[in-house]
């Protein structure tokens, strides 16, 4: 049974307290820092506890415990302790006091007490935790493992907090703006009043147009590459082209649309749909190809053995089997098309409050520009300082985020549902 060592455990607890409180101060920057005496006491306590446990580590009496103190370990420990006591002493003697203010290397920022002290403390408490854990485990590999894996777990916590933070901030600030009128009326007076009906409408048609272009082309390309192509040279070139397209920045798509389409079809729904569709193409090709690849060859061979032609095999056997994967790709494409701004900024949208003109009540006029949620939000952000649009901006952001995230959610659910069901 391993003996419990109280000293390192206590210093870990103190350091954790310092870490959490200083991160809180770093993030929220309260005017008054009431915790300074506690921090100093905590730092000094850590120094005492760590040095005490370091000294007692040698008293084990066993021979092998003496080898622990290599020169590197001693000097690292000494440096950490020196850092901790230096921070504490600087605060005690007032060198790091509330009126601290300095500039550094000509950077255009001023570092003040409220920022510097928590920053020093975060570093210090990390060092204290590191040394305490090392001492707790007697500088074994096990101690290092605990240390590293707790950092790794921290990154997972960070990610969850990040997603939760984004969603909750937007939900909290935006929910007040949402009402039936906000969703169903066009905006008035540069977005200060009214709602976002035209934006929702425009987003819908842009996404529909984009999918109408990218779905047949993307799925077709994937089928050709996976089922038809005998020419591996062509396949290679197409794969490289898809890889390049996948990396092309969205703003370059916007430039391309500006040069290629706006001169011929003007700033219009059509131009925006084509650009968004082309932008979605690589995503859909790649996901469809993944899905087609996962269909086992035995199914194809069975179908061909029954006398079906290649297209019959693809139509009746391969596509139905690959449908969940293809569908997931399409849904992700919808979400991406709904959330992109840069490609359509100069090609498809205006900040207009007039609804899309319809032929026969259901065919949109594709030669006219439309409004769009992302573009509306962008304009509201530009107006932020000048007009009172903040409430509506939060509302628009909430609608956009809810739309995109729920579409993504559907994609995830579809995939998980079929992944459990299908087993080859």
């Amino acid at each position, binding site marked *: 049974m391993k003996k419990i060592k109280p000293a390192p455990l206590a210093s870990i607890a103190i350091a954790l307290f310092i870490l959490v409180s200083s991160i809180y101060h770093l993030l929220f920057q309260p005017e008054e820092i009431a915790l300074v005496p506690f921090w100093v006491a905590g730092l000094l306590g850590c120094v005492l506890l760590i040095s005490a446990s370091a000294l007692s580590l040698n008293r084990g009496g066993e021979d092998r415990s003496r080898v622990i103190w290599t020169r590197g370990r001693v000097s690292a420990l000494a440096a950490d302790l020196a850092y901790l006591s230096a921070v504490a002493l600087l605060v005690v003697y007032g060198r790091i006091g509330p009126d601290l203010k300095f500039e550094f290397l000509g950077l255009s920022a001023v570092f003040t007490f409220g920022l510097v002290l928590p920053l020093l403390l975060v570093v210090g408490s990390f060092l204290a935790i590191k040394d305490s854990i090392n001492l707790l485990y007697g500088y074994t590999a096990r101690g290092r493992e605990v240390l590293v894996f707790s950092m790794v777990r921290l990154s997972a916590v960070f990610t969850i907090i990040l997603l939760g933070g984004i969603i909750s901030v937007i939900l909290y600030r935006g929910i007040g703006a949402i009402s039936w009128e906000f969703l169903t009326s066009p905006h008035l007076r540069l977005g200060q009043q009214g709602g976002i009906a035209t934006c929702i409408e425009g987003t819908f048609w842009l996404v529909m147009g984009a999918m109408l272009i990218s779905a047949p082309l993307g799925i077709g390309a994937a089928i050709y590459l996976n089922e038809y192509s005998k020419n591996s040279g062509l396949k290679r070139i197409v794969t490289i082209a898809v890889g390049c397209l996948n990396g092309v920045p969205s703003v370059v798509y916007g430039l391309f649309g500006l040069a*290629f389409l706006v001169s011929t079809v003007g700033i219009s729904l059509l131009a925006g749909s084509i650009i968004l569709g082309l932008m979605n193409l690589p995503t859909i090709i790649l996901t469809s190809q993944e899905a087609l690849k996962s269909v086992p060859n035995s199914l194809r061979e069975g179908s061909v053995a029954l006398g079906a032609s290649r297209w019959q095999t693809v139509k009746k056997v391969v596509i139905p089997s690959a449908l969940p994967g293809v569908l997931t790709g399409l849904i992700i494409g919808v979400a991406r098309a709904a959330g992109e701004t840069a490609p359509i900024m100069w090609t498809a949208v205006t900040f207009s409050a007039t609804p899309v003109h319809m032929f026969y009540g259901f065919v949109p006029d594709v030669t006219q520009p439309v409004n769009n949620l992302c573009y509306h939000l962008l304009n509201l952000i530009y107006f932020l300082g000048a007009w009172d649009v903040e409430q509506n901006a939060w509302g628009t952001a909430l609608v956009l985020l809810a739309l995109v995230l729920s579409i993504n959610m559907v994609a995830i659910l579809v995939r998980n549902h079929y992944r459990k069901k299908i087993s080859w």
Partner: protein
Amino acid sequence: MNVRKDDDMGPPDKRAVRRSRRYGDDFVEAFLFFAAITSILVIVLIFYFLTYESFLAFREVGFFEILLGQKWHPPGDVFGMMPIIVGSVLITLIALFINILVGIPLAIYLSELAGPWSREFLKPAIELLAGVPSIVYGFLGVLVLVVYLEKSFNMLTGRSILAGAILLGIMFIPALTTICEDALRAVPKEFKEGSLALGATHWQTVRWVTLPGASSGIIAAVILNVGRIIGETMAALLVVGNVARMPSPLFDAFDRGAIFTSVIAGEMGEVAHGSIHYHSLFAVGFVLLVIVTVLNISADFVRAAIQKKFGGY
């Protein structure tokens, strides 16, 4: 087609069946072929139009003047890309630091430590995070991050290279994590088990077996992420301040700055069609496209080269 009787065991009327099938099939195959070469067509068209539109700027201003010029001042028709390049490099370096600091540990957590329950929860969370539209990040950047930086660093305006870097670094964590996790998972189980059997701890196994085995994939993922960071538009446009001048000193991340995408997106809206400024913005886009494409292609080559030299997955 002939109606076949039950006792007719001979081959069907071959010609009729084949022909009807063949015409349909040919048509479909032609469409599929067209769909497949669309991507080649599009990438060629993109390169063609960007070269074509930026050619005038390169000719009027001069190729090296526009690439290496120290000043970007559209009202005076001075177009030099150096401030933009410096801003982009600064932003990319800081953003990549944040990105790697969180993204790779997260990938290690997902592939090595996460139990089924936390994995079930964390994977969709990461995918959702990847789906948040960039304009929403930009919006939060303006109202939360910029305000925070302004207050805590006593800056004139919080819109700065640092704000852009933090935002972009956070934005692309999911992209890095997803690829790195795949790379880590591709390392065969036998290697890890061998290492554990030799008495190594779990972390030693990850550090000396799994990470080196996956290094080619991880490095490729980082290179791809550099391309994504440089190419991200809306979030960067809203928080970097969009002032294209050389920061002084060069590493001053607290100053306002500009990157390729923010210059294009910020200035293209109000520029006269066909002016030299218009063509210069296309030149900026062309340089961006070349950089990103080179990064994308080199990611594959780097992966192959590392695999060839050191092995790995």
